[in-house]
């Protein structure tokens, strides 16, 4: 078969309903003349037709009138079977009426047997039309199928999906998961906007409508932005990962919004984080326990050494082995005395160390005149310095002559540094005690010597308990091995830091950097108001267990004119929260007695302070951990003072100092 575009090489499968053998032959001849290769079968009775219709055909040509049979019945049989089969009627007695009837019954053409030349063009047209119709049906079916498939995919998707009109800013449709997530019907969801499903503010502090505008603008610009989003349903915040996919339908900016509820994932993350935290804690405890054993062994060694001299010499004297009143007798008594004093120093150092460790060391800051304090310290060491002919110089910067600090503890630090400097500086050397200002309302105490210096690799061990360095092959320098460790802990407990710079053979400079205006640090079981509450000052509750971070927060907040209350445990924080009203609170998420998230839950649930902004300050970099809680802001450690104050200002808690202006 040829001229048709429908099939290639295979012959035209032609079914002919025709009672006349001659007419059938004429038909075939015409078709073959027209270039068709034809494989035809002739039926003459309804039963033969029925049997033939079980097989596939390209074309049916039927006579209109046959004995006991006719075109109408043929067309009816084809229609009854729902066959997609092109039919042409030929008739020996053409007329308008039968033609209309035939066409109505589904025939593509109605031809007169008188005009056989018309057959080929009619067949060509009929085959073409049949093919067109089949293609159309196929396309329609495919479209219907794809729509159904989309519909099913949309409806049954594992994530919540919204069909969204970006121009009109309205939800058009929602799938089953979305209705489940938002706990409302499809009708309620349709025609509402994202704002209505979100809390007033997102986790990053932007209002939901500002944030939504931003993402919708991006979607309209052809992007498919993905972003974390807080939804709200049934009074619960739902942290999600949301994506707006611009479907770019012609004429309308339609989008699909995919919403992945990440509450489970966050919970799993939180559990993972906590188990990692516990593991770290466990490691820290094991390490602490190892250090404690080592400390005990060293302690035993250090106590036995002076006791050996005390008991040994005392025994010799007691047993009469040394002539009473002789110079040796006197010398041994002196050794007993010195060893006894050394033992006392050791015990004092150990007690200080233990007190700092337990957080029980008390600091009593007062206004201190530095020139006086410095001359007191120098006076104690004058004899030692004179014995070694060491020149001791003091350099006191005039801008830091008045400080608020615990004078005894500062003296202890300076004394330790100075006595070390004198010990390691050779005869005729010099030692400088320097007090100078530092940035951020801090000062620096420095002790510079012209001593033997310390090798770089030993610097790290200096401030560690019992890590007395060996000075070459010479004898050990007298000392408890605790002095610098005590200094470090004293300074750190006051929010400061210590350090050393040294060059072998040239000398060392030990320093302590401390706040000029100390804050009382206490770990007593009740929270302490740290400064007298000024009239009208706004009180911020600081929940923080690390003394250094406490000091930093308190100094930043008080510096800005806030009053501060301090809680170092979750239990204290909850007690304060229920008892008094606060302007704001800062919360560390790592507390000794409860998880930070449990604390947030407790604070969020309290009726008092229900509008007080909470600022979370955490080392955890993932802000999503607090999703689900009402939190004004999440700031990261190490904390910047300006960021904290800016965050408070954003929360509407302006610094009292600013208000005065």
């Amino acid at each position: 078969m040829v001229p048709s575009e429908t099939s290639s090489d295979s012959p035209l499968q032609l079914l002919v309903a025709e009672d006349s053998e001659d007419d059938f032959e004429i038909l075939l001849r015409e078709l073959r003349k027209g270039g068709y290769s034809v494989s035809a079968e002739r039926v003459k009775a309804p039963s033969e037709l029925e049997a033939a219709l079980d097989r596939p055909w390209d074309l049916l040509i039927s006579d209109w009138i046959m004995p006991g049979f006719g075109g109408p019945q043929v067309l009816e049989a084809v229609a009854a079977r729902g066959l997609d089969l092109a039919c042409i009627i030929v008739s020996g007695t053409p007329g308008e009426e039968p033609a209309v009837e035939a066409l109505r019954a589904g025939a593509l053409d109605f031809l007169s047997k008188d005009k056989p030349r018309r057959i080929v063009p009619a067949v060509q047209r009929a085959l073409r039309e049949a093919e067109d119709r089949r293609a159309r049906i196929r396309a329609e079916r495919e479209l219907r199928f794809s729509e159904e498939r989309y519909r099913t995919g949309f409806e049954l998707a594992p994530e919540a999906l919204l069909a969204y009109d970006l121009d009109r800013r309205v939800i058009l449709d929602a799938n089953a998961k979305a209705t489940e997530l938002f706990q409302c019907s499809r009708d309620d969801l349709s025609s509402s906007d994202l704002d209505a499903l979100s809390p007033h503010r997102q986790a990053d502090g932007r209002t939901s409508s500002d944030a939504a505008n931003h993402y919708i603008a991006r979607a309209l610009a052809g992007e498919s932005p993905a972003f974390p989003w807080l939804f709200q349903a049934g009074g619960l915040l739902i942290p999600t990962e949301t994506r707006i996919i611009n479907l770019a339908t012609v004429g309308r900016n339609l989008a699909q919004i995919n919403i992945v509820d990440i509450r489970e994932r966050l919970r799993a993350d939180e559990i993972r984080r906590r188990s990692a935290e516990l593991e770290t804690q466990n490691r820290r405890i094991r390490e602490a326990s190892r250090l404690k054993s080592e400390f005990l062994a060293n302690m035993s060694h250090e106590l036995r050494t002076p006791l050996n001299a005390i008991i040994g010499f005392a025994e010799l004297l007691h047993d009469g082995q040394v002539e009473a009143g002789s110079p040796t007798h006197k010398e041994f008594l002196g050794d007993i005395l010195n060893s006894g004093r050394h033992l006392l120093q050791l015990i004092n150092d150990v007690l200080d160390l233990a007190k700092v460790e337990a957080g029980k060391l008390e600091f009593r800051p007062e206004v201190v005149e530095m020139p006086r304090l410095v001359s007191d310290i120098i006076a104690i060491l004058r004899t030692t310095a004179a014995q070694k002919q060491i020149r001791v110089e003091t350099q006191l910067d005039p801008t830091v002559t008045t400080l608020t600090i615990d004078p005894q503890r500062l003296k202890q630090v300076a004394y330790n540094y100075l006595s070390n400097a004198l010990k390691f500086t050779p005869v005729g050397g010099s030692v400088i005690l320097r007090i100078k200002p530092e940035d951020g309302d801090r000062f620096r105490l420095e002790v510079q010597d012209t001593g033997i210096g310390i090798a770089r690799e030993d610097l790290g061990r200096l401030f560690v308990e019992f890590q007395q360095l060996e000075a070459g092959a010479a004898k050990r320098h007298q000392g408890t091995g605790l002095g610098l460790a005590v200094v470090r802990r004293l300074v750190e407990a006051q929010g400061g830091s210590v350090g050393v710079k040294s060059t072998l053979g040239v000398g060392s400079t030990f320093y302590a950097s401390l706040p000029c205006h100390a804050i009382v640090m206490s770990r007593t079981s009740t929270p302490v108001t740290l400064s007298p509450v000024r009239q009208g000052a706004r009180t911020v509750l600081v929940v923080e267990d690390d003394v250094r971070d406490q000091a930093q927060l308190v100094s930043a907040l008080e510096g800005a004119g806030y009053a501060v209350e301090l809680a170092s445990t979750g239990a204290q924080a909850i007690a304060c929260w229920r008892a008094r009203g606060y302007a704001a609170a800062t919360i560390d998420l790592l507390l000794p007695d409860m998880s930070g998230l449990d604390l947030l839950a407790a604070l969020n649930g309290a009726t008092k302070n229900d509008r007080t902004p909470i600022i979370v300050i955490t080392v955890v970099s993932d802000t999503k951990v607090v999703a689900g809680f009402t939190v004004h802001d999440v700031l990261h450690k190490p904390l910047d003072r300006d960021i904290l104050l800016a965050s408070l200002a954003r929360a509407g808690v302006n610094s009292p100092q600013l208000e005065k202006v």
Partner: protein
Amino acid sequence: MGGERILIVDDNATNLKLVAYLMKAHGYDVDSALDAEGALEAIGRRRPEVILMDIQLPGIDGLELTRRLKADPGTRDIIIIAVTAYAMKGDQDKALAVGCDDYITKPIDTRALPDTIARHLAKREVMS
């Protein structure tokens, strides 16, 4: 007995003085050293019969020094008594493991130490 040479190794001058006085009072000929190098020098000069060895010394410690002396045929027979302020479990085992003949902890018993040394010397005489 009497006149045996004894070397006292201790990095703490006060303790060294105490033990030296005690040993001299009991008739020993006393040498002393503040560290391992000083001890080796003293041994080279005059070989002692007994060494009272402090374990914690700057540089080469008492355990290492004992190990070396016990490995050297020329010094193997010297009686070495560890005298140390390390009194924790395991410290004694460490001292005996490197070859110390005895182990006493500080504070020392000035009444018992001379007897302990005499006992070790007497045992050595019986054996030789």
